[in-house]
């Protein structure tokens, strides 16, 4: 029990630290939301006199001279009430609405891609590790090279080949915007069609890491005595590979997977940028470019909670599935 209490206490402190950093870091950035808004107005051909600046400071309340500490405490207070404030880059929309609009797309795309990549990497890794020294070993350098290629480059090449040249996949957006949205097959299939290529690029570029880790753990597990015992007992190879070797070798990968699930919500800024995918990563980029502190804080908050939450779940689960971690020396 003490194990769990200590863990929970640690996570509470980590959460507070993250929230505090979350408040101060955006405020250290140069620039302010009023300038970003003025930029948008100019872009519409508005005449920008000194009056405009003042009127926008009034509108956004950025010039009220409230001391930073007061802002900090009201920020913490608002967080507890679930009030993340108004997104100045989408004024007057609430931060919660902006995030709510993008989060499902990101979780759907990046979540499924991460899961696929993990399953594929672990299964392949187990097989490759089991048959070490065979031709299958060449899968390791092949997938690592794909992981090492800068992601934006890989994604651009995929767009060029599969969308622009071959026309197999749509170029951009999350679905065919000419269709009405709804839970019907036409719309859902359009979502799947639009998500396939971005998901593919994520899988291709990340599967190598899982594969390499799993394969190496397999190799060291195979040299354990209990594998030898199992073989001496005359068990079938396949049973030894899955029940004895892979089951033990997968432990570190499970931990890694849980952590990467936490990062799913932060989306993949580059993926969303290249494919014009409507997720949280592109919202974050917009928020930074527009000095939209409230939205930045909101997104960071969601990311922080997801990462901490995923870590907590792994920590607790790990105590259960691997009793060795619970023992105190």
């Amino acid at each position, binding site marked *: 029990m003490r194990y769990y209490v200590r863990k929970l206490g640690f996570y509470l402190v980590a959460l507070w630290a993250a929230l505090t950093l979350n408040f101060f870091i955006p405020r250290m*950035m*140069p*620039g*302010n939301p009023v*300038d970003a*808004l*003025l*930029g*948008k*107005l*100019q*872009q*519409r*051909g*508005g*005449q*920008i*006199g*000194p*009056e405009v600046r003042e*009127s*926008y400071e*009034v*509108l956004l309340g950025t010039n009220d001279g409230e001391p930073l500490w007061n802002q900090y405490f009201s920020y913490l207070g608002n967080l507890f009430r679930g009030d993340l404030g108004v*997104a100045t880059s*989408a*004024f*007057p*929309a609430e931060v919660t609405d902006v995030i709510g609009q*993008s989060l499902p797309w990101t979780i759907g795309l990046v979540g499924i891609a991460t899961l696929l990549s993990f399953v594929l990497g672990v299964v392949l890794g187990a097989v490759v590790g089991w048959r070490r020294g065979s031709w299958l070993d060449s899968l390791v350098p092949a997938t690592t090279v794909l992981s090492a290629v800068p992601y934006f*480059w890989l994604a*651009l*090449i995929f767009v*060029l080949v599969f*969308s*622009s*040249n071959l*026309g197999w*996949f*749509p*170029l*951009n*957006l*999350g679905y*065919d*915007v*000419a269709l*009405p*949205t709804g839970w019907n097959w036409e719309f859902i299939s359009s979502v799947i*069609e639009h998500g396939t290529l971005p998901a593919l690029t994520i899988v291709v570029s990340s599967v190598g890491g899982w594969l390499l880790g799993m394969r190496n753990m397999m190799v060291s597990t195979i040299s354990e005595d209990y594998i030898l015992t199992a073989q001496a007992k005359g068990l079938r190879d396949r049973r030894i590979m899955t029940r004895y070797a892979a089951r033990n070798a997968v432990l570190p990968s499970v931990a890694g997977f849980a952590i990467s699930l936490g990062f799913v919500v932060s989306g993949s800024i580059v993926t*969303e*940028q*290249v*494919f*014009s995918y*409507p997720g949280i990563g*592109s*919202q974050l*980029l*917009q928020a930074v470019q527009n000095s939209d502190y409230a939205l930045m804080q909101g997104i960071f908050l969601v990311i922080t909670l997801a990462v901490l939450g995923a870590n907590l779940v792994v920590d607790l689960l790990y105590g259960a599935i691997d009793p060795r971690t619970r023992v105190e020396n």
Partner: protein
Amino acid sequence: MSLHARWRRARAAAIGTVTIGLLATGCGGSSGGSSTDPDTLIVYTGLAGQWQRNYNPYSPESIEGIGSIYEPLFFFNIARQDEPTSRLGTEFAWNDDGTELAITLREGVTWSDGEAFDAEDVAFTFDMIRDTPAFNSFGFDGSTEVVDANNVLVSFEEPSYMDAPQLLGKTYVVPEHIWSGIEEPETDIMADPIGTGPFRLGNFEPQAFTLEANPDYWDGEPDLKNVRYVALSGNQAGADALAAGEIDWQTGPVPDIANFERNHEGYKSITIPMNQMVLATCSNVELGCEGPQTDPAVRHAIFHAMDRDVLNSLAFQDTASEISPGFALPERDAAYVSAQLENRVANGSADTAQSEEILEAAGYQRGSDGIYAKDGVKLELSVRVVTGWTDYITAVNTMAEQLNEAGIKLNVNQASWNETTDARNSGNFQLAIDSLYPGASPDPYYVYYQFFHSQSTKPVGESANPNWARYANDEVDEALEELSQLDPDAGQDVRQPFYDTIQANIEQDMPYIPILVGGTTSQFNSGKFTGWPTDVNLYAFPAVWSRPDQSQIFANLKPAGE
């Protein structure tokens, strides 16, 4: 910072990376993208990210509706010297001293919910602007009087001729019967906008929304039935979608602009010179500027040492055009360009000899490293530019080489947009590459008022927007005051002497060193629709993000099949 420039820049930024993706452009290539139908115009505004529903024409984050759903009284064409086009107003006239503006309104107009439009709506809109600080972007302080159902009289304390383009052309009339019930118009998103315009809001989704033709429009239902606004991630995605034929109109970067029309069947490209690219200098010692650029001789030397022809082809794909040191646009404002200027337009190729002569006359001596120095201080300047805006970066890097020839050392300082803008607004810079954007009507007065009037500036350390050069000159201020008291229709011979004074002064002081006039490039699908603006019939500024210009163009388009 002008977003005009910002997007042009982002455009160029894209080109670098896009070239890869865009090798595809030449090959054409189709895609299993959106299903298109022949009377739907698909546009991309260049804005990155998804749509957040907001159809309040006065909200800074309004996504559409200006001109298309809500209409101004008149349309002022900033692309050429036109008379204002009638929209909801049919006539306007000033009294003799410019303190009363009489406006006659169109009869028989209805709001899209069926209510009749009349002078009460116009008076309500004007009063709301005056009483809502967040909406009052031009300091409107007039009072309104409804004369009868079709006539409104606006009175001012002082002559206010120069407010007319904003009041008549950039103020969008809203229905009193709806807006009078709104408590906080600043924060209302007008989810279901009611206007008089040629279009109404159709379907809205964060990734795309549609405007539908208004069947009851006073000028008849537009031929263009639907306009779909899609949300893409930026200029690269825009260029890709254009290459695949998925969008019909965008304003922004495309690689290989010279061969665009050959590579994109059915599409046309048009480039309009509008934003004047300059090296802004922190020029005013009295307001706290420091550095060699506070010496006008240095600014003039830089002006002459630039090779603009080379800059144009290396950095701007030859889409830029010549600039006048008096900052009247050489084409559009040809009649305003002063005969008293030393140089009517800036030199195309470098005039290093002239540059050297100016520096030597000002007491600079060339050091052993070829760089000029005065009183032991080397002539070394830093120029600020935004990271990723590749055309500006190429321009300043090329300039650095050109100026080096002339004995001036230029250090390029790249930083994020936020940081660069902050430095520029607060005066914490020596040189910064930027653009002077146009005003509400085709009259150089607005550029002068915004960028050269001492009222538009602040001391270093405070935010000056937009007179970043901290320029203050009593003669210029006075001439601008005089101009604002004159009826713009009074005739060129009455107004021109003031323009001459302003231009002579700003050429001599050169707080902004002219580079070139940047071209705004738009691409559109002329195979699918006809009626686009052309070089000979430039009835509106053809940038898809320019409002209300876009509505003039929407109303003029016809599906090509009909």
